[in-house]
């Protein structure tokens, strides 16, 4: 443990040492501080990542509600009482004394001007540029830490940090990792040639930099707001150089992957670059991938994914307060099914052909791809809701969420009849299987709800099961089919079918209007369903970890408490403004 802590302390030391040793050697007269990091990077860089304000990130994290909650937990108190952590604190204090600054001040001073990292293919090297807000403090701190590191190495009989010189600049480290300090800059690289290129720019002034790369300049110009971390990858060059061969493949063996990200692959085959922006604030953490997009790039067989002119748009999700997860998407599934020959490999096509034959039989001879899937509109939704069993008997022991598929019918009058007949056949089929397995039977019914028909089937409990509060898992389900104008809902429960009818009538359109795909996870509803099944979770924990009930209950309690700090998560795919954008966001309560 001590060795590990010393190693950590030394690592910090070496980084800062590298920074602080500048005044120990003669340095050319540079206006290094005047340039931005990207002006120092060679034009040949393929990938760049920037964190302009590491100090702000640390402030956000340390002041975040989630972090405060974590600090309140007994496990945290236990962890910081650990002898190893206490030793670490001792070492940190020693270093603080030596450099004359608290660690936080040192962090803000040395990293406050930002961190930039880049990859350069010619040298296969990575360079990191760290800019301090105070060059003098950077240098004095580094000097102290280098000396501390060298003294420590000598005391252990190790070789002290070696140094060399390049154009009057002192270089520290060995061949596979050196660093130098120039003005407010700490320059680190794993390849000498790349490090020298950056130092040459620092010494000689103007040279072609990554800023002169049109793709980079375009991307840099379009930065949205102030991301905590922003990165750019020159995808065109990567493709041209023969890397990323996987992108050349048109066909896949996985229909689910095709449905989810098929369109993204189309874009990645053509787009010149990709950017990723990471935003952290007190309310949300957001990761945004963006790439230029042109409708001309979309192959005919992928139009099912993007829609006409890449403008296919998902419906607003039919959410209610109890919605745990909603997935709303634009996919012309019928088209995908019929174009399977272009999209999937031979094996998958064989599988799909078998499935097509079986499903065609099941749907009373209707062609599954053309007629059945073809009767659905492209805007489809999958919703998962928490069920309330407050006024219901029997109550199942394991309380599952309800779920539903919602969409539009292209020819409602005709399609409704077909769907209803198939639903009734399915219920009959389930009853035959259920009878063979001794499971309860489904009783079919038709309910009129707000002028809409709901075809439903409910499990019939045994006489001694009617009032049970620990009933079989089947009592989570009452499969239902509902229609509201040209909409259809296939739900696992009648209650959910009714909720969807309500939601459709209320036209809740809070989000997702312009998304190709919109996914939302509601942490509060998720927490509630986990609480509903708390006994199950505790029992599973007891079995999996061999813990006592009390220990397991405490662990599950902590999990639920941590979950309660989050609002939820969203994931959106959009094709607007000439861009394909993927946005993942986690919302927290602050």
């Amino acid at each position, binding site marked *: 443990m001590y060795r590990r802590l010393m190693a950590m302390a030394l690592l910090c030391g070496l980084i800062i040492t590298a920074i602080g040793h500048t005044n120990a050697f003669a340095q050319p007269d540079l206006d290094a501080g005047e340039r931005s990091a990207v002006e120092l990077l060679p034009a040949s860089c393929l990938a760049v990542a920037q964190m302009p304000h590491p100090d702000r990130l640390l402030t956000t994290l340390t002041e975040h509600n989630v972090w405060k909650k974590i600090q309140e937990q007994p496990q945290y108190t236990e962890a910081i009482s650990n002898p190893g952590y206490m030793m670490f604190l001792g070492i940190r204090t020693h270093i603080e004394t030596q450099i004359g600054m608290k660690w936080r001040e040192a962090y803000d001073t040395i990293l406050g001007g930002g961190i930039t990292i880049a990859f350069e293919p010619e040298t296969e090297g990575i360079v990191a540029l760290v800019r301090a807000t105070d060059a003098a403090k950077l240098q004095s701190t580094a000097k102290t830490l280098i000396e501390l590191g060298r003294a420590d190495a000598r005391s252990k009989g190790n070789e002290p940090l070696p140094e060399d010189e390049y154009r009057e600049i002192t270089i520290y480290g060995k061949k596979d990792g050196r660093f130098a300090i120039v003005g407010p800059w700490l320059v680190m690289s794993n390849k000498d040639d790349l490090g020298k290129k950056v130092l040459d720019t620092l010494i000689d002034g103007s040279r072609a930099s990554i800023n002169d790369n049109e793709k980079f300049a375009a991307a840099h110009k379009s930065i949205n707001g102030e991301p905590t971390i922003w990165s750019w990858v020159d995808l065109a060059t990567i493709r041209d150089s023969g890397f990323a061969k996987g992108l050349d493949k048109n066909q896949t063996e996985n229909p689910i992957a095709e449905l989810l990200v098929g369109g993204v692959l189309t874009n990645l085959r053509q787009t010149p670059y990709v950017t990723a922006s990471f935003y952290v604030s007190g309310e949300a953490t957001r990761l945004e991938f963006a790439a230029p997009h042109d409708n001309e790039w979309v192959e005919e067989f992928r139009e099912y994914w993007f829609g006409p002119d890449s403008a296919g748009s998902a419906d607003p999700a039919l959410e209610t307060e109890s919605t745990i997860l909603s997935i709303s998407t634009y996919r012309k599934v019928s088209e995908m099914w019929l174009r399977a020959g272009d999209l999937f490999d031979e094996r998958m096509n064989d599988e799909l052909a078998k499935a097509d034959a079986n499903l065609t039989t099941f749907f009373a001879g209707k062609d599954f791809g053309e007629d059945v899937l073809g009767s659905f509109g492209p805007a489809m939704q999958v919703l998962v809701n928490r069920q309330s069993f407050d006024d219901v008997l029997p109550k*199942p*022991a*394991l309380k599952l969420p309800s779920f539903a598929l919602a969409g539009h019918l292209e020819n409602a009058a005709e399609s409704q009849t077909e769907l209803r007949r198939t639903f009734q056949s399915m219920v009959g089929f389930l009853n035959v299987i259920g009878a063979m397995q*001794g499971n309860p039977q489904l009783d079919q019914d038709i309910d009129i709800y707000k002028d809409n028909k709901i075809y439903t089937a409910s499990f019939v409990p*045994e006489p001694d099961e009617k009032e049970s509060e*620990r009933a*079989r*898992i089947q009592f989570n389900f009452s499969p239902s089919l509902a229609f509201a104008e040209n909409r259809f809902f296939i739900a696992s429960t009648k209650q959910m079918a009714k909720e969807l009818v309500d939601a459709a009538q209320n036209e809740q359109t809070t989000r997702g209007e312009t998304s190709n795909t919109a996914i939302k996870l509601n942490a509060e509803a998720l927490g509630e369903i986990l609480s509903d099944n708390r*006994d*199950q979770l*505790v*029992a*599973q924990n*007891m*079995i*999996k*970890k*061999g*813990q*006592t*009930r009390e220990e397991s209950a405490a662990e599950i309690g902590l999990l639920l408490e941590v979950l309660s700090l989050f609002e939820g998560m969203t994931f959106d795919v959009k094709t607007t403004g000439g861009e394909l954008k993927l946005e993942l966001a986690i919302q927290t309560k602050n």
Partner: protein
Amino acid sequence: MPQDIASIDPDWAWSPFVPSTEQPWNRRLAAHLCRRAGFGASSQELDALVKRSPSELAHSFVENAKAASQRDPETDALASAMLATGNSRNLAAWWLYRMLNSPWAGDQASTTNPLLEKLTLFWHGHFATGAEKVDDAEMMFTQNRLLRRHALGDFGAMTQEISRDPAMLIYLDSTTNRKAHPNENYAREIMELFCLGEGNYTERDIQELARCFTGWEVRRKKFRFNRYQHDTGAKTILGETGTFTGEEGVEIVLKQKALPRFIARKLVRFFIFDEPTAPEQLVEPLAKLLRRSELQIGPVIERILASNIFYSPFAVGRKVRSPVELGIGLLRCLHGSSNLDQVAQHLDDIGQAVFYPPNVKGWDGGRTWINTSTLLGRSNLVGELLRNEATRFGGQTLETLAKKNGVSSPGKLIEWLDELLLAVPLDDSARKELLAFAEQTTGNPSRRIAELIQTLSTVPQFHLA
């Protein structure tokens, strides 16, 4: 003391063991009691148990187990949670949890007791029913409750109930039994495997008893008597004639003289020695006690656990540990806890999946637990249990556990493990080899102890109970 089993004086054998200077009552003997009556005991439990006399312990073990058997485990939230998944494999982990977490010195309200779990396991092997065929966790759980409820009670009542148990009837293909075609499966097994043993009935008795069971059916997972399918004619079973019902047929079997001897012999094999077959004169006193107590199991168990023979060299180290005894025993002795789903899977790999006995005869036990493949598997089980990331020893590491028990050197460690884990003490050469091994190994102390225990598991004594 007699020299061989054949010459054992039954009076001496079943008289209460009284500790003497030659054979003092100590932690090693207390550990033997706990291994046989349950699945072993931790060092702290042994400290508490050794303060009481062997007879006193046998009596309290039986009384506590009987009390626990009458408390309804339906309220067991863990079982409910496992049942909610509908998977019998999850039930195995639930049962192992009970075996592992039942206290020897349990409070009066406890529904778990090591002897109760051990006897339930015995009856599970006796009235063997496999979940693979029954394919319903709820029914297997109901049968398990039945076995637990009667484990130390009335064997007659248990047999009557198990005869109508849906899981048993499904397992023996007896879900329908029509008078036109009586199903002989259950009639055969109740006489051959459950109550009398071979040679104590005829094929004709089986056919006649099967007629008594006509009309017995399983419908929607419940027992049902279909009076229209019952053969109401006269039957002659084991010398008695009448228009017997199924219950009356079972009662005739229960009255047979062969029954107490059959059950007593199985109990002797389970609790005292695997081999050889117990001589008639040794079994007879227990059989008489069973008959005299109207087939109550508890008094027989108490007599066995307090007896001279139980603490004699005829019993100590004369049984091969079953996989459950090996795995759960190791954890119990080291105050351990682990991922019981994985433990259940490992036990399956080496031949004992609870709720999944291999056939209607149950597990053969004895030497059959060991073969070239299971021997390696048993050693791997020990290693896996010790190194699994979910395994804790009293909530701590092996190093902390050893320190708490005053282990300060490799020599003391071997001494501590020898007494705690082995039925037969290590001989000098094995002890020296282990000491050399313990002194050679370096690195993380917990890992070193684990390595030593796994090495210990390669010693033959480790597999004896």
